[in-house]
């Protein structure tokens, strides 16, 4: 038993849970969903903070958050925005001027803005707050909300399921190719917030869509915690491009749990970027549950100062004839630290699996630290599974080449880092988002 295990944070979360439930009941959440909150609250009460002995927590220490978490407020409500102009400027600049996407914007505990263009509405595409979806589309959520991300995963996931505030629901009907992208924003207004949204994305058979999730805030005083969960369901032969981009202010602790399930012949393009926050821990699991399904995962982490990033991916090949291809890049400067922990699992009988996993790390300072833990667990024999990981620094010859052509050192380094990220950046679906990310990267390079 570690000291962390002994400190069971029960008691205060009961009070939290009661408040969150009252809030949800007021907004008209159906009884079954309220019941699930209570069940999750009971699970949370029986669990404690994850033990530092646990393989997924040995390298990431949330102690500072854990001592403060009781003081955070899970129910801060912001006034609804009537137009885009009521949203924070930072969000408006990320949205861009000529954006025709569906928008669901969350601010602290609740969704404050929803917009669905007529083209999507006509197609029967749903993009709305989780609260609205629970009232209007409950039938589409009973089997999906909490089915992939089970509340007993760990304490954080349990409180997330009990306190659930906000989140979005995206649904693309069978055979529909969504006419416009769906963008989900999450903004945290300052310190002292605890935000635990749950989102569900469902693509019907043969549907096609692009969904981008953007998590943003400005650095503020006092810790805030984001503990979001996303469940993504890809029906047979459907295709989804899913981007999950994070650029929190430096007061935010981030712990996300994202799960995707792919049915027969489905294809997922997953792009994940981690740029902001004080500490960010992300668990992204891909369940290849139908033959012929394919998951392509690209991601990067760029840390500076004392940022600490921990990305854990799981490529689960549950049946035969599935493909996954993953590339995670990490770049670190100053005293930043990153951990990439990836695992390819091939279940018994999952023959003809083709799985690849690559992790490339670039260290820009001698005080930065990168850990890479790419793993394989293979229980079928007719497979092709490979992984590779590298950790290195900026090639002096490349620097020399650029500087010999008159580029100052910093400029040369900036080009090299941009080039390092380019293969991932190029996959981000919206030009405006790509541009915003480029700016964040440039700003970080300094």
């Amino acid at each position, binding site marked *: 038993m570690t000291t962390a295990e002994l400190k069971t944070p029960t008691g205060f979360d009961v009070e939290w849970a009661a408040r969150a439930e009252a809030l949800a009941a007021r907004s008209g959440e159906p009884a079954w969903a309220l019941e699930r909150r209570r069940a999750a609250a009971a699970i949370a009460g029986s669990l404690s903070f994850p033990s530092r002995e646990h393989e997924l927590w040995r390298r990431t220490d949330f102690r500072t958050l854990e001592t403060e978490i009781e003081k955070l407020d899970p129910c801060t409500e912001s006034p609804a925005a009537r137009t885009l102009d009521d949203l924070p400027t930072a969000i408006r600049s990320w949205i861009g001027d000529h954006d025709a996407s569906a928008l669901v914007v969350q601010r602290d505990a609740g969704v404050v803005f929803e917009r669905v263009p007529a083209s999507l509405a006509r197609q029967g595409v749903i993009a709305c707050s989780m609260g609205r979806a629970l009232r209007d589309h409950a039938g589409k959520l009973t089997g999906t909300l909490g089915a992939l991300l089970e509340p007993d995963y760990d304490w954080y996931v349990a409180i997330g399921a009990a306190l659930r505030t906000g989140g979005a629901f995206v649904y693309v009907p069978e055979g529909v190719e969504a006419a416009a992208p769906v963008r989900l924003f999450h903004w945290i207004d300052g310190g002292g917030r605890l935000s635990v949204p749950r989102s569900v994305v469902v693509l019907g058979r043969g549907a096609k869509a692009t969904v981008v999730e953007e998590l943003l805030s400005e650095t503020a005083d006092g810790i805030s915690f984001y503990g979001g969960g996303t469940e993504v369901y890809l029906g047979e032969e459907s295709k989804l491009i899913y981007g999950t981009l994070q650029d929190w202010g430096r007061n935010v602790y981030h712990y996300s749990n994202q799960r995707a399930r792919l049915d027969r012949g489905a294809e997922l393009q997953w792009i994940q970027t981690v740029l902001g926050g004080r500490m960010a821990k992300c668990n992204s699991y891909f369940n290849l549950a139908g033959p012929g399904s394919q998951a392509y995962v690209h991601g990067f982490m760029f840390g500076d100062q004392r940022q600490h990033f921990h990305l854990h991916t799981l490529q689960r090949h549950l049946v035969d004839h599935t493909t996954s291809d993953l590339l995670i890049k990490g770049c670190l400067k100053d005293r930043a630290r990153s951990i990439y922990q990836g695992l390819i699992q091939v279940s018994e009988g999952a023959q003809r699996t083709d799985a690849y996993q690559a992790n490339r790390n670039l260290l820009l300072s001698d005080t930065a630290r990168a*850990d890479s833990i790419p793993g394989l*667990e293979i229980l079928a024999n007719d497979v092709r599974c490979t992984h*590779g990981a590298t950790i*290195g620094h900026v090639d002096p010859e490349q620097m020399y080449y650029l500087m010999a052509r008159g580029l100052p050192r910093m400029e040369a380094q900036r080009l090299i880092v941009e080039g390092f990220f380019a293969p991932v950046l190029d996959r981000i679906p919206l030009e405006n988002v790509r541009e915003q990310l480029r700016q964040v990267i440039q700003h970080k390079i300094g």
Partner: protein
Amino acid sequence: MTTASTTGIREGYEEKYGFHDTEQHVFKSRRGLSREIVQEISEMKGEPLWMRDYRLKALEIFEKKPMPTWGGNVQEIDFQNIYYYVKPTSEEAKSWEDVPADMKRTFDRLGIPEAEQKFLAGVGAQYDSEVVYHKIKESLEKQGVIFLSCDHALKEHEELFKQYFGTVIPSTDNKFAALNSAVWSGGSFIYVPKGVHVDVPLQAYFRINTKDMGQFERTLIIVDEGAYVHYVEGCTAPTYSSDSLHSAVVEIIVKAGARCRYTTIQNWSNNVYNLVTKRAVAYRDATMEWVDGNLGSKLTMKYPSVYMMEPGAHGEILSIAFAGKGQHQDAGGKVVHAAPHTTSKIISKSISKDGGRAGYRGLVKVAKGATDCKSTVNCDALLLDEQSRSDTYPYMEIEEDRVSIGHEATVSKIGDEQLFYLQSRGIDKEEAAAMIVSGFIEPIVKELPMEYAVEMNRLIQLQMEGSVG
């Protein structure tokens, strides 16, 4: 002579190694572990007080440390059902003729004297807890090379022994290192003086004979500046229906400019828990090489490691793991770059068959300040059927930017095309598969002394028998 076994053993093992002699020992401790047993072992050996105290302290550490919850399943080990010390003979023999007849028969069957005559510079043979035979070529002895059992070394070279013992692997390192530190017996002690090049390998052979026996040998190798030695160890045990425990500690110090190669062909029977801690420290421009072949045992958890302490040090780990029915080989290696300009290489080849589970678990660590390090890791796994399992868990912890670290791993099966090619040339399927497996591990086997390479290939062939239906 041989007993019919109830456990599923690997084909061919029973005939060659699975026999056991009637137990004839001059002393056998009671089952179980206690302060009294540890004191008794120390007393039997007539050890100095400091060693007795060291053992007792290690026992306390062992009792406090939790069992590992990762790797393989070690929860079934019943520490109170094990004989910790079995002394088979009263004296260590200096010449082959003096070895008691039954033990001689054992080692004759295993081919020890033959090997010694043929190509070894020195040989040691351990039977249960004690080394029963030790011999080194006179020419080497004259140059000051010491090759003794650890017990003898403690008696004859106490100062040298005390200076290094427990410095590479302290008893607090892990639960099984603590256990070994408490009840260790036998093993080899080697000291190679400055600049001495031992051309032919020194060899030790380990044999568990007694049922429910735990073997805890302790090996300490010191290779002084500019010296070279190659040490080879082999292990077998009879096949009993209950499990045995082998928990060794091997400490190696490779001084400036020296080179040490340590080769293991582990072929315990399928009811031995093989939980071994092996570690070397390499100083300026020194080279440490582990060649680690794991074919036997029920569960092996062994990760030979090299700590590169000064610039220019080089570490190399070549690992083969073959897991057949009921076996779990959790093999691998660790390289720790604790100084700048150090290099390392790990090559791992694992093969799983008949529901066996083989894996690589490794660590590459670059400590702060260890700039300009280079490390490459290559892991290949071959799965021979649908029931088997392969795991790869490489850990990389890098705290410096001016480094180059690479890791690559692949998992595959025997290619149908390769099989077809060989079969179309008239080679039957089974032989073809064995050939492909031999080719797969070739990069490591070629590093073995010729006699061992032949033996290794033969063992692989035995493992492969009846594997392709």
